[in-house]
């Protein structure tokens, strides 16, 4: 499994404010290294966020997202104590999943 994510999930009014920090090189596959060789594409393709088992975000991520992505979103109807699971899969098949409880 790849490097861990940092998830922050807090209740703000009637919605949960979730912020995710992912560790990923997010290479587009179009950059060249010092020697002129193409740096191979390596980026997150799918991002799924589930609250208490229910999918709330099903994202298709691409090369326009920069290194170490930061995503923030609000989830209405969530409450303190709910389990938030964030999972991603990248173009090489590598994946990562982390969870936290809404505070």
């Amino acid at each position: 499994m790849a490097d861990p994510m940092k998830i922050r999930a807090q209740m703000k009014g009637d919605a949960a404010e979730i912020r995710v920090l992912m560790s990923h090189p997010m290479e587009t596959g179009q950059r060249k290294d010092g020697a002129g060789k193409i740096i191979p594409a390596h980026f997150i393709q799918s991002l799924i966020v589930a609250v208490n088992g229910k999918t709330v975000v099903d994202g298709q991520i691409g090369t326009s997202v920069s290194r170490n992505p930061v995503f923030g979103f609000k989830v209405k109807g969530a409450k303190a104590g709910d389990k938030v699971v964030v999972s991603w899969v990248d173009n090489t098949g590598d994946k990562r999943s982390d969870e936290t409880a809404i505070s």
Partner: protein
Amino acid sequence: MKQPIMLSALAALSLATMAPQAAAEEKPAAGKPQMKQMHARPTAKAAVDPTTADFEKFRAVMEDTNPAELFELKGKELWKQKRGPRNASLEQCDLGLGPGVVKGAYVKMPRYFADVDQVMDAERRIVHCMVTLQGFKAEDLAKKPFSSDAGTPDPVSLTTYVAAQSRGMKLAIPQKNAKEREAFQVGREIFNYRAGPYDFSCATCHGEDGKRIRTQVLPNLSTKEGAIATSQGWPGYRLTGGFMHTIQWRMNDCFRQQRFPEPGYVSDTITALLTYMGANASGQVYNGPGIKR
């Protein structure tokens, strides 16, 4: 291209020949009368222009979810892991507050360490522990010490972790020991030492209030108010390129921008500069690793 000339030797030489002046107020080596005005302390805080204010706003927003936290996590892992030829962890590393005490250590460095009879800054001390406790070679760690597309070197993640453990604490760079005071004075000399093809010193950019170069605010590092801007920002995550950098990197890059020879990684020169700037910032709160444009 790279010529690691030991600037510390040059600085020591200038210090030896100018010993009486070292005690004087921030006087540059050239001693020109108009230069004195540049380094004078301001009586009122310089007004912040709207562009600078906007950049500060941007930074505050980005600081809220700082990718530096990922490197804190990584550094914490590395600290506890058994690694290196000696297969040992860093949990016995003495950062100045006793073996294994990490909390509050960062804000008290650079400081004198009796076991090496030297003043060391945080990253230098961490590298020292990696060498003595884990058996890594100093030359290997100095080969590619800065973050790049190839990755983030372990000392960088470790320094980020150690720095984060001093979050919310007041900077208190010690100046009790004779070597600590000497490091401050040598640092001040270097800070004001004009050299290179541009005849720049650190003070050329960082010796006046209210200066900005394009998008980059230039804090006056010779003052208490300016010095905290530097201490606060490092280690810092740089959005350009997505790299985690420590102040060792920043010093190296400053020397490059001044077209100086490359300073030695974790060398006496850098420790002296960090002692000078750090002591200037003492008394103010450090809020943990920062974020950069």
